């Protein structure tokens, strides 16, 4: 047993200034961070607020930031972190408003989830039992279906941090649950919806969602698959898709990225909008002057071989 220093984020209507309370809690081996929070609640401070229910990593209630990373309190071994960092630091999820202490306002999570129209749109005359979904497609759906909606991904999302209109990783993973489902009768209109501002093209592929997900859902992978599907469906009239295509085209041409052409290709006629022109002008004055032409890379042949592999039709494993 170790006496651990446990720092807990506190905020309430009575005490609206956010601060850390420090508790000294005896932590035994095999105890989880949730056990530690219960020790605080039952033995030290009955005014502490946090969510939890199943304590077996399936209900998704108890996601919070523990020693700097969003994860479930119920399946996080406390002693391991105490031994690694010398303390426990327990804070609420980011990118959601704090209601009290560790309890956040989850409506910021549920609203974008509902916005992706998260239910199967049936074909007109569905068969009694649907056709089986082939192996890899099924596995991709099963993985996003594993999501317990704990909001750990949204908490760590670097886009959500700067753009509140972004749907976020969990909602987009849920969107893929239907885009990738061959039973769904609205794939194209879904992809149109998700290609709008705040959707699949706004992800900056920072990988944090894949990194922190306690269920291995890999929201980023789902987002990238939807980008491919959107382009395959010809949904290219948006800066995200144009950027991807322009990026690929410049690499194909010379073997390397041409930033100037990519920027013009991404923005289309929007490149000449006054706001963008002024940015370009300022960049130019600061010495950032990407060239419109570039030499073909020495290893261009090898690059082309890679591109051909990527473009080849996929085979199921």
């Amino acid at each position, binding site marked *: 047993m170790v006496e651990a220093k446990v720092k807990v984020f506190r905020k309430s209507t009575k005490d609206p200034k956010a601060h850390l309370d420090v508790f000294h809690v005896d932590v035994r081996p095999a105890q989880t961070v949730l056990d530690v929070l219960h020790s605080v609640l039952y033995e030290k401070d009955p005014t502490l*607020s946090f969510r939890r229910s199943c*304590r077996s990593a399936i209900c*998704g209630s108890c996601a919070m930031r523990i020693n700097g990373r969003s994860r479930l309190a119920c399946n996080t071994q406390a002693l391991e972190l105490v031994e690694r960092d010398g303390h426990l630091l327990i804070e609420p999820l980011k990118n959601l408003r704090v209601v009290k202490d560790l309890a956040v306002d989850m409506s910021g999570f549920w609203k974008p989830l509902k916005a992706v129209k998260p239910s199967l749109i049936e074909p007109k005359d569905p068969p009694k039992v649907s056709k089986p*979904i082939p192996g890899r497609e*099924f596995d991709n759906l099963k993985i996003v*279906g594993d999501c317990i909606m704990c909001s750990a991904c949204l908490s760590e999302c670097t886009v959500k941090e700067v753009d509140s209109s972004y749907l976020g990783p969990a909602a987009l993973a849920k969107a893929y649950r*239907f885009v990738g489902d061959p039973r769904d009768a609205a794939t194209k209109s879904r992809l149109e919806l998700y290609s709008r501002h705040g959707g699949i093209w706004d992800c900056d592929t920072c990988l944090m969602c894949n990194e922190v997900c306690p269920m291995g859902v890999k929201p980023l992978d789902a987002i990238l698959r939807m980008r491919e599907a959107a382009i395959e469906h010809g949904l290219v009239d948006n800066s995200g898709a144009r950027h991807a295509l322009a990026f690929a085209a410049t690499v194909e041409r010379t073997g390397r990225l041409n930033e100037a052409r990519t920027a013009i290709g991404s923005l289309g006629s929007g490149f000449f909008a006054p706001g963008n022109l002024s940015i370009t002008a300022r960049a130019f004055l600061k010495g950032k002057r990407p060239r419109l032409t570039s030499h073909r890379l020495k290893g261009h042949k090898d690059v082309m071989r890679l591109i051909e592999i990527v473009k080849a039709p996929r085979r199921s494993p």
Partner: protein
Amino acid sequence: MAVKRDVLVIGAGLAGMRAALEAKARGAQVTVLSKVHPVRSHSGAAQGGINAAIRPEDNWENHWFDVVKGSDYLCDQDAAEILCKEAAENIYELDRMGCLWTRDEKGNIAQRPFGGQGYARTCYIADMTGHFIQHTLYEQMIKNDIEVFEEWYAVSLVTANGHCTGAVALSILEGRLEYFQAKATILATGGYARTYRTTSNAIANTGDGVAMAFRAGAPLEDMEFMQFHPTGLYGVGILVTEGARGEGAYLLNGQGERFMKRYAPEKMELAPRDITSRAIQTEIDEGRGIDGKPCVHLDLRHLGEKRILERLPQITSLAKSFVGVDPVKAPIPIQPTAHYSMGGVATDIDGQSPMPGLFAAGECACVSVHGANRLGGNSLLETVVYGRRAGRAAAAFSKKATAADGGDETLRREEAFISGLLKREAGESVARLRTELGDTMTAKVGIFRNGPDMAAAVQKIRELKKRYSGILVGNGDRVFNVALIEALELGSLLDVAECIAIGAVTRTESRGAHSRRDHLTRDDANWLKHSRFRKQGDEVALEYRPVRITKFPPQERKY
């Protein structure tokens, strides 16, 4: 300002959501209250699967017989018949809603064998079946725009002239009480295995709906029948699915012996849960646990890594997280864990309680389809079959009923009680009382029972109820007051536990999960009947009701 609706559903797990969807589809105005967000409900923790006879070689009548025999002949056979007959269409309906099912090599919905059944008829998706159905139903809730009051904790039913007219609930986020007036109220609040110390249940499974119904004067039924799941993770009680044994896992004692051959030579590890839990407990009690500890081993290793990771990914990760064991490489230490409440609010086959306007569905109800022992894979099935039936019946009832008023008095009473708790400055700890209750139930009303222990448990629970009147919350804040909710939940647990213990000490026989050392055999002459519990002042009054036997005459139960 009261919220007025045709149908109020309390609880948003599988039964509650299925009931709400059905009531709305039938034209009723529906509101759902839940103390946790719908996807946080404990139905999502159900792992192994859902039963339905969907193969040409199988049929629902075989399933029906297995349920009746599994129940130790205490279930109502007409109710069990409906459960089995309506099973297949509910599986197909979930498929059409978008639920994923694991398929076999031929592309058919895969089925695995579960305990006490003559055919492999448990449909599943890996070991996350409850989770996938729960999220599918939640998708339908969003699609059908069903109003949900999330994180509202129902504290009391409201009655007028013996009719249920809704409920008073507390907003957890805001701390204010509201009257939800309804022509029909459906309880779908789940089980109450949290009365026990070692349990597979979520912290939220405190039997609030069952306790509310009891306090309002509706009868409870068969409360003494608590299912102990054979395989809870050692020390924490977290569920390890029966699907593990369905896939072929062995139970081994400290001597490495597959001891089930001495208890159920034909079914072995796939004996029903009551028999398997007693076998494990006997091995432990007789000194054949693992290294002298109160656990045995569940060994999956011979299934191979590929199959374990494909079919049982969740329990693999739970075993790693909570007992530090990788089931691919080592056997999992397990012990029986309080799991499922066969008893609950007494209802008919449409989910209607004897109290007009009050319905119940799912684990909080006692229809009774499980009798003295539920078979694995039938709880998820009950939620959808009887959730739907309760939703339909409640919608029909609401068309005829006129909502009477009567909420003001309940509202005032509950407000006075809660503000009293919030203001109190000294008293006994809620956690201590709850621990004493759990220890008492596990030690004295557990897998093996006897008269003197259970009588002592009844006395202890009454003492705890007295002490409950002086408990301390210690937190006066109205916003997200976890300590307050736990205090209210303890009130539910105590009421429910008293019924369990009284029912158990009174029933002088052994049947299904109720196993007495001092009355070893089943006694059909005196006890082939349902227990009913009614609140009479501060006492629990017991009545009995005959079992409806429509096809299968009681026989000796052997596996």
